């Protein structure tokens, strides 16, 4: 078993949605790996060696060869281990999956983060508007149980932030974006996703996450 997969190491941080994406993908495919928890205030020499460009987690190292950027890593995992595919086979469907996962990273997550963690109220409100627009696109795109169809795929894994981190942020800062009235399909999807057997085992403790976001919010609003 171990020989088939080679040596796989993952550098991450417990609370990072990006690192969790990679763990979900590896575990869905049954890939054995060694996990290294990083302290981002004191990054390890190995992390800096393996990701000198961005110095961030997650970093996957497969047989000594490092890879960074979670979406790039997810596609690599799918290219390398063919069981439980997370990307569709057909080129057009693959392009759509890549499009939506990038949309989540380039538009959704930054808007949500700004809507919660910006000192200036007007900027927060504008970002909240942007977040709602972004969530509406995803709501419209959801046509089955998961974005990937009947099983979770690349877009579901990328959207994990919305299913678990966003509700924690909402609780921590008193924001409401993902309401089930406005986004019934996305809301239901969030519950299905977080209850998926592999995902369930790969989420950080919620109370710790809320605490982390509360502290972040406090530091931003205190510096006003």
């Amino acid at each position, binding site marked *: 078993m171990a020989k088939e997969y080679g040596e796989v190491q993952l550098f991450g941080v417990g609370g990072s949605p990006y690192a969790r994406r990679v763990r979900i993908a590896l575990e869905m495919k049954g890939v054995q790996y060694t996990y290294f928890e990083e302290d981002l205030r004191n990054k390890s020499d190995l992390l800096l060696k393996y990701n000198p460009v961005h110095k961030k987690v997650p970093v996957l190292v497969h047989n000594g060869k490092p890879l*960074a*950027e979670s979406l790039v890593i997810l596609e690599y995992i799918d290219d390398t281990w063919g069981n439980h595919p997370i990307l569709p086979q057909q*080129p*057009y469907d693959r392009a759509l999956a*890549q*499009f939506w996962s990038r*949309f989540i990273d380039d538009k959704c997550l930054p808007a949500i983060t700004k809507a919660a963690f910006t000192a200036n109220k007007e900027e927060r409100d504008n970002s909240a508007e942007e977040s709602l627009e972004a969530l509406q696109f995803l709501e419209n795109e959801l046509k089955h149980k998961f974005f990937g169809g009947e099983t979770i795929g690349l877009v579901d894994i990328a959207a994990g932030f919305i299913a678990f981190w966003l509700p924690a942020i909402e609780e921590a800062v008193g924001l409401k974006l993902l309401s089930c009235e406005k986004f019934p399909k996305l809301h239901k999807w969030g519950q299905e996703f977080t209850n998926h057997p592999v995902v369930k085992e790969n989420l950080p403790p919620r109370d710790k996450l809320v605490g982390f976001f509360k502290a972040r919010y406090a530091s931003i609003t205190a510096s006003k």
Partner: protein
Amino acid sequence: MADEVVLLDFDLSMFCIRVKIALAEKGIKFEDKEEDLVNTKSALLLQTNPVHKKVPVLIHNGKPICESLIIVEYIDEFWKDNAPLLPTDPYQRAQARFWADFVDNKVHEVAKKIWTGKVEEHEAEKKELIENLKQLEEVLGDKPYFGGDTFGFLDVALIPFYKWFSTYEKVGKLKLDCPKLIDWANRCLERESVSTFLSDENDVYEFVLSHRKRIGVD
């Protein structure tokens, strides 16, 4: 039945040029629809790219694909028997994708801050741009192309920016230091796909100057 391939295009867009180069490398005929981005976006653009409302959009037999790197990958996969752009090895593919993202986020986005802003407020970005292009030189190494012996995905991703280098220097009042990239670019320009579609650097400069006037930074 012949494939119907339409590209919603903007002549000076580096992102559109990527797509045109990829189509040309594969010998795919396409209908080129130029958008007037300065004034109004066409109904077709808004309908096919409602999320970003941007070019390029490739419409293949009526189905739209957006985002230049995603479009280039799609072209590579759909017309896979001809002139492969992405490597077959998963690790090499991942590296090509990683560095293509780097071009978008660490070259384009950084440079854009300079050429759309007050130059004196962007000393940090100027330094970063110079360093990031040097970083790409290291990635190229001694290879003729980023793809190795053959012109590939990362070459397509970066080459359209080559004609922006002199504008970065003039507008940004900076000096790039990437002679290896210049050699690489000239090698790429020997390819018909590249020489046909790469912008004229004076056109780029004029575009940036009028853009700066329009947004009020000059």
